């Protein structure tokens, strides 16, 4: 359509701008979390995260040295020399000597105060304060400085969350727990479902159509229904709460989608190839391992991503089947929910913890997006 004659270019521009706005709107929340995870607690509570991206204006109050001790004779009066910055210097934009006008002077200018008292503040923070005997007495003169502070980020939060933090703040254990749940819960259903999908796609037996319909039905059964009966079952047969229960539950809950996706894909493979393998003397088992599995790689990858994202991001199954009273098998989603309850205001901890937990799925997402999309297209029941 791009080549159609007489097409208005203003419309194209409107489209470009709307898409850009939409993308920004969608990206904004995640970026906020990401940026916040690199800020200190003080920075987070001082300003919104969007302010952290630009150098910010910061106002601070300093006091000159105690005139009684540091003043020296200077002509008719006295003078105090010194610098307002004890440690790190700031990039002074403007300054003032009264809280009513804190940005009255540029660096290098001289402030005229009552009775001929003067103060000169230079860009490097050094000052000269001149005045009479009674003017340079008592406490030091207050200096209000408006400085430009460059964006500042820190990795401290990640160090806390991943290594040094104690108790709830340390996610390292939960991270490994999550991995421990996720990887077997992703691989095992693939193996089981692949065999079942092959049988449903390419083997003749009575009741096949009925089984496929049943699996489509199970695809939408909410797993909420399974919670009590299965928890009772697990407790009854002695599995209790723990990894095995979680693996079994994830395996079974992922099964309808796995069988459905893989069956649809396998049924679409060319019949001739499978028949040719039969003529070549392959048994069903050999056809499955040598022909079907290599050719179904895209579908296997699609489901693997789904199951990985689902198990990694899961909260409900972990809470019901995995995490016992000791909490030693907690997963990241659960720990974050707990953090939300107990450390709701500590955004540096929360943001970092949340970002650690979403970093892995995001990585998987961007690397394997192609397969995810393919799986989505195949998986939505038509």
């Amino acid at each position, binding site marked *: 359509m791009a080549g159609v004659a007489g097409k208005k270019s203003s419309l194209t521009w409107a489209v470009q701008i709307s898409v850009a706005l939409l993308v920004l709107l969608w990206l904004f929340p995640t970026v906020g979390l990401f940026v916040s995870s690199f800020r200190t607690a003080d920075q987070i509570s001082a300003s919104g995260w969007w302010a952290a991206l630009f150098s910010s204006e910061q106002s601070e109050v300093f006091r000159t040295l105690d005139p009684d001790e540091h003043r020296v004779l200077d002509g008719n009066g006295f003078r105090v020399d010194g610098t307002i910055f004890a440690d790190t210097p700031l990039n002074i934009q403007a300054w003032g000597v009264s809280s009513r006008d804190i940005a009255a002077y540029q660096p290098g200018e001289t402030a005229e105060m009552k009775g001929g008292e003067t103060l000169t503040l230079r860009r490097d923070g050094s000052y000269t304060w001149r005045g009479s005997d009674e003017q340079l007495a008592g406490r030091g003169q207050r200096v209000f400085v408006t400085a430009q502070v460059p964006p500042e980020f820190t990795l401290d939060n990640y160090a806390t969350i991943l290594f040094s933090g104690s108790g709830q703040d340390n996610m390292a254990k939960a991270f490994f727990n999550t991995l421990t749940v996720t990887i077997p819960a992703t691989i095992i259903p693939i193996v089981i479902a692949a065999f079942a999908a092959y049988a449903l796609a390419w083997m003749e037996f009575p009741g096949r159509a009925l089984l496929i319909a049943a699996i489509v039905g199970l695809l939408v059964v909410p797993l909420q229904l399974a919670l009590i009966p299965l928890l009772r079952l697990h407790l009854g047969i002695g599995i209790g709460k723990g990894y095995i229960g979680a693996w079994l539950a994830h395996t079974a809950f992922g099964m309808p989608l796995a069988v459905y996706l893989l069956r649809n894909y396998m049924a679409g493979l*060319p019949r*001739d*190839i499978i*028949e*040719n*393998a*039969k*003529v*070549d*003397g*392959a048994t069903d088992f*050999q056809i499955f391992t*040598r*022909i079907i599995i*290599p*050719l179904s790689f895209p579908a296997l990858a699609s489901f693997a991503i789904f199951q990985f994202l689902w198990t990694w991001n899961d909260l409900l199954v972990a809470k019901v089947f995995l995490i016992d009273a000791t909490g030693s098998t907690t997963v990241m989603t659960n720990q974050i929910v707990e953090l939300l309850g107990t450390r709701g205001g500590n955004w540096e901890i929360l943001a970092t913890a949340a970002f650690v937990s979403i970093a892995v799925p995001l990585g998987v997402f961007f690397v394997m997006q192609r397969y995810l999309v393919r799986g989505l297209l195949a998986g939505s029941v038509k």
Partner: protein
Amino acid sequence: MTSLSLKGVSKAYGSMEVLRDIDLDIEQGELVVFVGPSGCGKSTLLRMIAGLEKITGGTLDIDNVVVNDLPPAQRGIAMVFQSYALYPHMTVYDNMAFSLKLAGKSRQEIDTAVRSAADMLQLSQYLDRLPKALSGGQRQRVAIGRAIVRDPKVFLFDEPLSNLDAALRVATRIEIAQLKESMPDSTMIYVTHDQVEAMTLATRIVVLHGGGIEQVGAPLELYERPANTFVAQFIGSPAMNLIEAKVTETGPRTSVIMADGGHATLPIPTRAEDQGNAVKLGVRPEDLSLVEGDDFLVSADVEIIEALGETTVLYFKPKSDAPALIAKLPGIHQIQRGTHLKLIAAPEKLHLFDENGVSFLYRS
């Protein structure tokens, strides 16, 4: 020696019968072509021989062993599929070696077999390629090579040329013919809907229609002596003209007249009781020629003229609801639309069928 024999073979899906009572013996070294319109059951028959479809009635012998219940791999057959069915994730070499590996042959044996088949088909330099890196013709050759490697008793071809473009189809057809010549002892069964392939490749053609065999015979036998109107019209292009006629004289030679006054006497014997019966006179378009005067076979008005240079095809206006008459004349003819023409054919080129469509030549 009989290589393969079908005795009363039939196939039914539930109550729907797609093949019934097929009897056929195939000798070693024959190339038998199954031909017929789509839906005639020719592919099903081939797949039953391969073991890809269950045989629901009758027996199938290969080398005098009943193989009805044997899986495909144990029947001693190899099959070339319409879509080639190459394993897309294996190289040409692995494609050809796959069946031998499954059979547990030694590495040495496999290598020898694959390389000799590849040489024969000029595939040696492509052995490391994946199928997607090959042209259509090369893929076709790999599919054939995969069959050769297994050294089967019977080769089965399921419309192997229908995925190729016209030029390649001719070239590959010739290659298959040469392949057959180089392996005179191997038996081949070839399914096609293309009568040119059937005529050029076959030692014998089996014409299938509506789940049964219409006629079995050498290609030219089918052309010259079709057993019934179906075979008569299926073999040859354009199809044979069938003209309603009435028998006026019986005996070793038969005379018939047509409604428009055309008449013919042909060297086909009829019996006395056929006198006066309605019959169908068959004449191929290419056997008709123009004639003047009263001694003609048929006469009609020209409706459409197709001048092809090499030949001129004339379509005549049909009389009432009869099918249009077609004539194919050699060379170029200056004929106007609507001209009334008279046509004649040599008596020995004429065919005669009874009202059931059965040729008088084959009447028992």
